[in-house]
């Protein structure tokens, strides 16, 4: 399989703190790739480099085999990489379709004047959600009235609206209960079925083993190992992360 995203020998320091001291990451197209590691291992920092939030001190990032410079989040989006932060970046009191199309609203011309194309945005929002097998009927419902799993689906739809091919999710289930976590796992599987590459940061070993194809483990700012989840138990994964085995 070809790699859609590779990071080689990434280094990043914040003053005296060496957050990354030579981290590698290879993500194959279409896989669900988990990023694990203890607190402070450098997961979020690595993701910041890939999503254009921070620049590496050293190291290269390749997308689809081509070296890229991601100077800002916009560059990352242009390269097809969308990041869903833990707070999801939604406006709770705005409607579902308004959130999905936030910043890239659809318009049509009426008498030469550009006006919002509400009907088209509603229809396409519905399509995006259906592609995720997510059942929400009213696209004009406010996001604040949705469950945690449904909100996650709306955030993913916005990434799809941006035509993202790689979706990075930072701790998507950290604040969710059992049932909602299961919903998010379904969303991730569905994304994979649709050919989207997912990078998942998670502290929950059960989730990782259940949904990911591969895991990259960071420790102390370095890549410890990258392994397939085939036959991997959550217990064994925990031990690898702690550095036991």
């Amino acid at each position, binding site marked *: 399989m070809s790699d859609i995203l590779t990071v080689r020998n990434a280094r990043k320091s914040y003053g005296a703190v060496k957050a990354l001291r030579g981290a590698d990451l290879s993500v194959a197209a279409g896989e669900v790739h988990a990023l694990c590691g203890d607190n402070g291992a450098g997961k979020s920092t690595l993701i910041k480099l890939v999503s254009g939030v921070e620049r590496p001190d050293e190291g290269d990032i390749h997308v689809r085999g081509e070296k890229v410079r991601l100077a800002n989040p916009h560059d990352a989006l242009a390269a097809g990489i969308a990041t869903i932060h833990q707070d999801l*970046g939604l*406006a*709770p*009191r*705005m409607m579902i379709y308004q959130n999905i199309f*936030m*910043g890239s609203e659809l*318009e049509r011309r009426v008498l030469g004047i550009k*006006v919002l194309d509400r009907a088209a945005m509603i229809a396409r929002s519905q399509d995006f959600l259906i592609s995720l097998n997510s059942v929400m009927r009213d696209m004009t419902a406010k996001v604040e009235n949705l469950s945690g799993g449904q909100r996650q689906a709306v955030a993913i739809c916005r990434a799809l609206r941006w035509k993202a091919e790689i979706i990075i999710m930072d701790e998507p289930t950290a604040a969710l209960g059992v049932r909602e976590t299961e919903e998010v796992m379904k969303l991730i599987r569905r994304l994979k079925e649709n050919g989207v590459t997912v990078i998942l940061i998670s502290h929950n070993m059960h989730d990782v083993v259940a949904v990911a194809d591969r895991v990259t483990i960071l420790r102390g700012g370095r890549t410890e190992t990258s392994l397939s989840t085939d036959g991997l138990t959550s217990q064994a994964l925990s031990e690898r992360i702690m550095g036991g085995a």
Partner: protein
Amino acid sequence: MRDFIAKYGTALAGLLVFVFLLVFARNFASSANLLNVLKQTSFLAILATGFTFALLTSELDLSFANLASLAAVVTGGLIAGGTFWALAVVAGLAVATLGGLVNGFLVTGVKVPSLIATLGTAAIANGLTFMITGGVAFVGRWDPMFLALARGELFGIPVLVVVMAAVVLIAWFVTRKTRLGTHMLATGEAQEAAHRAGIATRRMKLIGLTLSGFAAGIAAVLLVANLSSASPQMAGDYLLNGIAAVLLGMTMFEPGRPNIAGTFVGALIISMLANGLVLLGAPYYLQDIMLGVIVIASVSVSASVLKKAAFSV
């Protein structure tokens, strides 16, 4: 049902007050008086529409009334000094718009909270009106064309009412039907999320505050034309009235959110109450008390946006 009350309760209450005044306030129902109420509403509704734009992006503008006074004395002063009235009107509009732009730069560029920044520009504008006028009003026999801006009629409808309708309709269209309006709304609702979604949030705030200034300019020109005089602080009373209209409006149609339709109905209710209180023979000070009650009651019903605007830095 509950939803219905939340959306239309205030408007219905306004309707009840209207009916009450029709029945109990002598002369309220006369067409001359009703037209008068509508004319009074026009200044207020235009100013409040501007404030709505600022508040939509979650910024306060406490300077719009003083900017209107400043624009009024600039326009009046120029006309009194012999300048062609149309130029004077442009100058008035420009001064108020510039004031709004300065507010916008202070808030988005220098990062002064809008509560403080606009309080500052309000004081400066007030000082300038006294500097320009020396404390006395400009009065005179002014070009009838200019006076017609406020006193004339278009197809039998007072120009004032036509201008108000145009301002309110355009503002409603922009906020509800255009990308610009949606971006302003998203900026006010969730600035960080909007920014991450690629919306130029600082520009939206700049536009909101600038539009507030521009609206103050329009109202100022109409006030001067209506009174054919311009004096310092001539729009001063509109600060509390305008804010009350917007806050009252936030209890209607889109509860908790500044919205143009609500602002318009809010302005209508406030002008109607002011007029009705006079006709009922209520003492003059009751009007201020009423405004205070409206402001506090409205905010206690739907406070979120305003709190954010007042306390965001």
